[in-house]
């Protein structure tokens, strides 16, 4: 296996402002941490401090500090934190 030539090149410049695209369109789910609970909604933050309100009906009761896998504003799974 030879090293591809383009590994030695700089990354191409962004073709457009939406280079990273819409994460919801992209089926991307993100990990968020619960910081406050408001009924069936959880106020969450990601590791860069961005806030989001997340619907939790699909994962059952959540608690502050829980890690959730979130897509399109809805928690799809509860994650355990690696020690």
């Amino acid at each position, binding site marked *: *296996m030879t*090293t*591809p*030539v*383009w*590994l030695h*090149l700089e*990354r*191409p410049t*962004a*073709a*457009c402002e*939406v*280079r*990273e*695209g*819409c994460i*919801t*369109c*992209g*089926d*991307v*789910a993100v*990990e968020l941490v619960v910081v406050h609970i408001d009924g069936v909604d959880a106020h969450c933050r990601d590791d860069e401090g961005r806030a989001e309100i997340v*619907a939790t*009906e*699909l*994962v*059952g009761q959540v608690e502050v500090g829980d*890690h959730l*896998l979130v*897509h*399109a*504003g*809805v928690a*799809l*799974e*509860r*994650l*355990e*934190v*690696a020690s």
Partner: protein
Amino acid sequence: MTALRFADEYRNPDLAQAVGTKIAELCEPGRDYKFMEVCGGHTHTIYRYGVQDHLPDNVELVHGPGCPVCVIPMGRVDDGIALAEQEVESPNGGTSKVILTCFGDMMRVPGGNGSFLDANARGADIRMVYSPLDALRIARQNPDRQVVFYAIGFETTAPSTALTVLRAKAEGIRNFSVFCNHVTIIPAIKAILDSPDLRLDAFIGPGHVSTVIGCRPYDFIARQHRKPLVCSGFEPLDMLQSIYMIMQQLSEGRSEVENQYGRVVPWDGNPTALKVLSDVFSLRPYFEWRGLGSIASSALQLSERYADFDAERRFSVPGVRVADPKACQCGEVLKGVLRPWECKVFGTACTPETPIGTCMVSSEGACAAYYNYGRYAKQRIHLEV
């Protein structure tokens, strides 16, 4: 399930090199391997991190139909525009235009009558939302307007639409409805397997779709078609490990469904989400997929119980069918028959700024991913060869 602790752990170049070497050791001399990554998120990872460059030359990754935006046919875009441009009866009397809401990438998908952005320039009110719950909030804030959510996506996204419909019904919000284009991944994989012009050795299974549906629905691929499938995470090392697991199966003559993404994907999926999906949606008899044609039982519509929230029943939708532009070869790219740069208009007439085909719109589309991360490399390689 264990949360990913540090992303860097999954992007370690030395480890990637080591896994690549192990994959190469399992390759039979003289044999070519073709693996399809079903999910557009994996396509994005492959190009963004150069996953293919850690693989031996005889292992090729083929891009599948798992980009939600890419499989929407042009006619459904035109249907959305027709919805947004018509005057409808307002909830409080009189008439007004619909507020159409959709996810970000959908705004730029070209239909036969332009894109949603073009429709806005003509006076339509089409708004970008991150979640269908945002669309429901817009409906609450605009009680005198009809608000329609243009729903797209696979089983990852369909639960959020279903949950939104449940909340709308519980709150008695009457000016909210859904134009449903949700599709399901299994029929698409079946269509790929039945395609006569594509030979595949194995599948890299979609990670986040599997969070909802679990791993069992893929059993037929291993049992009937004798092909391995490994559900994979989205970091570069996740993908390389999945490919290694596939290679192990092939070298041992096994064909099984395995789960590399165990820290997120439960084997049985999310039973609550599946129950909500079966309550709110029913299967459409047929649905048109871009590039794959009409596939039976491959898409969702609102079930009878929630028919009041179905925009196709509430409003007049023309049901437009538009042939793809002749120059566009998205169909072949979606089936993995053509690689993005082999399309006639790739990077020339068709770019992310002025896309002709859907694969160039979403960052998960194979063409956009390749255009953003690898196109100069191809030119350079051509020059040096």
